[in-house]
């Protein structure tokens, strides 16, 4: 009982540190990455290669005055940034990072609180993010922010449907909503992972792409960053936010990217299992380092996409969700159901 409490406290501190540190340093990665793509140097003044820059930015944001414009809905205005950050931290509670994989505690599972309905809880909390956009945009009393909030909500709702349907497909294949079970079902090499069309799921690649697009759209990343289309809506829903109000939105965005990448890794890329457990014994067959490697590769892909593509319009975005992704996800669901349940029943 006591030990459990210590475990919980340690993990909560660790999770918050992980979320905040990731948010801070992903900004650095993004800025450096963008600079590299654009043949610039990026941040280079504060610390070696600008490594202290995120801390300096954080200190600057925290020391700034919070401006409350006239006529805003103050309680909601203050609540919105919290809605952006708190669910993100909550989600990290249930995400398993995998076993240590080496040393004396090789089998120790790095997870704050594994749940048997972990996936459900993550999806539930992830949808709270839309509330943050809506409240922030609405309460700022700024027309650009309101348009952005409306866009954000219609986008969030549209892409949540294919996201959830695709997740259900995986749940059907693995037979569990517990994330560690889903990962264990993919153990044994990359050909066993869910995105490969080998393991009873012919539609693996399609689901993976659908899920990845939905993840981009749900986290409001380019090319789906309509809510923050700076050439149209200034800064979108957080136009009126200053100081840590803006800081929390910003951290929430990056925390969501980490969550999205983690979820994609767990559902499709074998989580913490090694792609070649037999041939390449680096890092062991399963280790949280594999997990981190995979999510950071995914995040790097996200960064590359952002700095390469122009932005889509709202209409084509919604068309993509309702006319392409949702039908694909449904076909995918039906196809998987047939493969998993009906074919064995017929003795095939």
């Amino acid at each position, binding site marked *: 009982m006591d030990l459990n409490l210590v475990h919980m406290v340690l993990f909560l501190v660790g999770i918050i540190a992980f979320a905040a540190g990731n948010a801070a340093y992903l900004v650095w990665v993004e800025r450096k990455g*963008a600079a590299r*793509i*654009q*043949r*610039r140097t990026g941040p280079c003044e504060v610390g070696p290669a600008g490594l202290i820059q995120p801390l300096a930015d954080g200190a600057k944001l925290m020391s700034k005055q919070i401006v409350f414009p*006239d*006529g805003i809905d103050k309680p909601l205005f203050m609540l919105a940034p919290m809605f952006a950050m708190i669910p993100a931290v909550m989600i990290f509670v249930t995400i398993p990072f995998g076993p240590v994989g080496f040393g004396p505690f090789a089998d120790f599972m790095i997870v704050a609180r594994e749940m048997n309905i972990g996936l459900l809880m993550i999806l539930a909390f992830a949808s709270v993010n839309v509330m943050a956009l809506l409240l922030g945009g609405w309460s700022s*009393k*700024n*027309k*650009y922010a*309101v*348009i952005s909030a409306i*866009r954000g909500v219609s986008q969030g709702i549209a892409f949540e449907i294919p996201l959830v349907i695709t997740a259900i497909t995986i749940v059907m294949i693995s037979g569990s909503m517990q994330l560690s079970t889903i990962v264990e079902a993919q153990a044994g090499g990359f050909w066993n992972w869910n995105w490969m069309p080998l393991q009873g799921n012919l539609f693996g690649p399609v689901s993976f792409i659908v899920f990845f697009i939905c993840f981009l759209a749900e986290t409001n990343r*380019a*090319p789906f*960053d*309509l809510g923050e*289309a*700076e*050439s*149209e809506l*200034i800064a979108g829903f957080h136009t009126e936010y200053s100081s840590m109000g803006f800081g929390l939105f910003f951290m929430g965005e990056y925390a969501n990217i980490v969550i999205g990448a983690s979820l994609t890794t767990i559902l499709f890329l074998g989580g913490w299992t090694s792609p070649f457990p037999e041939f390449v014994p680096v890092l062991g067959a399963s280790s949280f380092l594999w997990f981190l490697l995979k999510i950071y590769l995914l995040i790097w892909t996200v960064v590359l996409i952002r*700095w*390469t*593509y*122009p*932005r*889509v*319009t*709202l*209409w*084509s975005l919604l068309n993509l969700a309702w006319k392409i992704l949702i039908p694909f996800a449904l076909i995918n669901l039906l196809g998987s159901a047939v493969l998993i349940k009906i074919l064995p029943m017929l003795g095939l």
Partner: protein
Amino acid sequence: MGSQALSQNNETFEINLGPQHPATHGVLRVKLTMDGEYIVDAEPVLGYIHRMHELMGENRTWAKYLPNMGRIDYLSALSYNLGYVQLVEKMMGIEVPERAEYIRVLTTEMNRISSHLLWFGAFVLDLGGFTPLLYAFDDREHILDLLESVTGSRLTYCYYRFGGLYNDVDDDFLTGCTQFLKRLRSRMPMYHKLVTGNVILRQRLVGVGPLSAEMCRKYGATGPVLRGSGVNYDVRKNEPYSIYPELDFDVPVYSDGDSMARYMVRMDEIEQSMRIVEQCIAKMPQGEIKAPKVPKLIKPAIGDYYHAVEAARGTFAIRAVSDGKNQAYRMKLRAPTFCNLSLYQEASKGMLLADALAFMGSLDLVIPEIDR
């Protein structure tokens, strides 16, 4: 902003786009009446950077007015320089040496390339793609360096003189131009691969903001906007001036009239300008760069004169009225984007906000030129 509309129950609401807004590239203000994401009415409000260049023309001598020309359209300043010195040469009957003409055309076309490159980057930035802007700036930087080496300034050039040039170009400049063209030729396919062929970009431009040739005529649109609507009109071809008749180049015309057509016209114009620069370098004659007898005091004969040149954004024309003194009696500057923007209100009706901004970007606005 915002205070009344949120509490009203009206079907439409108003948005102030600008005068400070990332998409207007300057201090343009557009009063948008919106129905949700659709534009009911978009009224451009001008004058935020109005400097009354026309009045300055009336109280400065002809020669002292020359530097003003670099400050009207700061992105293709040399076309404006060219238009003005040619007007004065027309009034005074000054013959310009051939070498000076070649250098004029060469530098003007380099300036046109730099202007189009900047537009290309800024336009894709409007559409949400940030990276091409910096690539375009990278290339443009080479042009600015080259032009700086002969004109002495990087943006607001004042290089041409009545009857010639401020100074001669050397071989370093010409080899620099050749090297730059080689570099840009190798980079154009990259631009087309990165941007032109991009599915999202095509989705955002094809069919957006269609302008018919008739509408362009009614609104006096010129330049790439007119050529994107299928009208083969380029002052350099239709009303040849300087040495353009001796050069071999095409006028890119696209008949779709949408934003993609205007985009393609400008991208093709970069290629054509490269051809012109190459020919200028190859044919560059030796000789003087200044006309031997240019009067110290410019006093054109009484009368009024009109001269038009093709600037990067369309027809730039000057109507000067002289009363025989050393200052103009009236100096009318006809700025191309002024007319190109005037069709915005009608053409943007019923568009989505995002499309309207893409359309505005495709008009290639330079606000100081509109406001003069």
